């Protein structure tokens, strides 16, 4: 039995505070590469206060079926990213997951993979989900590799659904079943 569901090997999941998230996200928003890998929306700049208000309003809007966390490093408690399970609590026992490491010094070093393992454990052990879905983009091979490592399976692509600087890319759809996740935990 896992004694602390929120602590991994490199990271921990922390309660999402709109103030701290707003502060960090306003900074990450200025990194166009991060924003393109994070979301489909055109990057929008907002100041810290507006960003904090936005996160506060999101907390209100997504009260049901949404579980938001901040990702902090175990080494120095640095806020490096965010992750959430959303559209959970459905009759079909599945939810969507999103994850982003805004601090680019922490890219490609296992922090995202570690945090993804934590939020999956939360989804399967606490929410009793049957499966978890995610979307990423073909322009983000680093993320795809991380999700494969965690155990996500490729389930298809939404062809040419993204246009960035004149080039078309796919939305990549991946999923992991509870049975697959359990097999990996017991291996």
């Amino acid at each position, binding site marked *: 039995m896992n004694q602390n569901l929120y602590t991994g090997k490199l990271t921990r999941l922390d309660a999402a505070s709109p103030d701290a998230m707003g502060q960090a996200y306003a900074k990450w928003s200025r990194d166009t590469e991060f924003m393109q890998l994070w979301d*489909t*929306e055109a990057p929008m700049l907002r100041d810290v206060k507006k960003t904090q208000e936005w996160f506060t309003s999101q907390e209100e809007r997504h009260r049901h079926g949404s579980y938001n966390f901040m990702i902090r490093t175990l080494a120095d408690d640095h806020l490096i990213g965010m992750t959430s399970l959303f559209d959970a609590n459905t*009759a*079909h*026992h599945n939810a969507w997951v999103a994850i982003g490491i805004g601090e680019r010094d922490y890219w490609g070093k296992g922090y995202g993979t570690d945090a993804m393992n934590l939020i999956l454990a939360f989804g399967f052990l606490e929410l009793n989900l049957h499966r978890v879905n995610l979307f990423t983009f073909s322009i983000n091979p680093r993320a795809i590799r991380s999700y494969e490592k965690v155990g996500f399976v490729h*389930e*298809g692509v*939404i062809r040419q*659904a993204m246009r960035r600087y004149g080039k078309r890319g796919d939305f990549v759809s991946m999923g992991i079943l509870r049975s697959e996740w359990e097999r990996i935990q017991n291996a």
Partner: protein
Amino acid sequence: MVLQLFEGKKIRFAAFDADRDAEIFAKWTNDPTYLRLVDHEPARPLSPYHIKKRFEEMEKEAGHALYYFVIRTQADDRVIGFAHIFWIEWNHGNAHFNMGIGSPDDRRQGMGSQAIEMILRYAFEELNLYRLTVFTFEYNTGAQKFLAKHGFQLEVRRREAIYRDGRYWDALTYGILADEWRAKNPAEDTAQ
């Protein structure tokens, strides 16, 4: 050439008329078989009041991220279904689509086919979208055949994402690109 986006032979697209149309939409919500074909949400009977509220909410996004139509018969001007283009991402030219024919009596007469041809033309010729995405379910074999027939390709199979009648079913995503549609619809008017 007179462009007719909203007029088909058997059906036409119309605006939702709260006073006239809420009743029939409410009636369909009492048919769980129908609801299971068009939605993953648990079945819930809605009153005309709820229907009006829903359409009021939709109207807030209409003309931006959402375009929605009521399907009426040409013969007797009855409301038989809906067709919506939603979650439009203008920067990528990407959107979702769904439709439904509420009563089994109105299905299998070519009216759904006409509606999907009209919605595709609206999406690609009027909204200038790049592609259209639609969700359906493993158990809805009718929809799968219907979408394939109208040029959609199966793109994503989310395994065991839908729980119905004691077992899991796959959730399916179909898509069509504007170029694929255009290759089959070079002429002016296909829905007439």
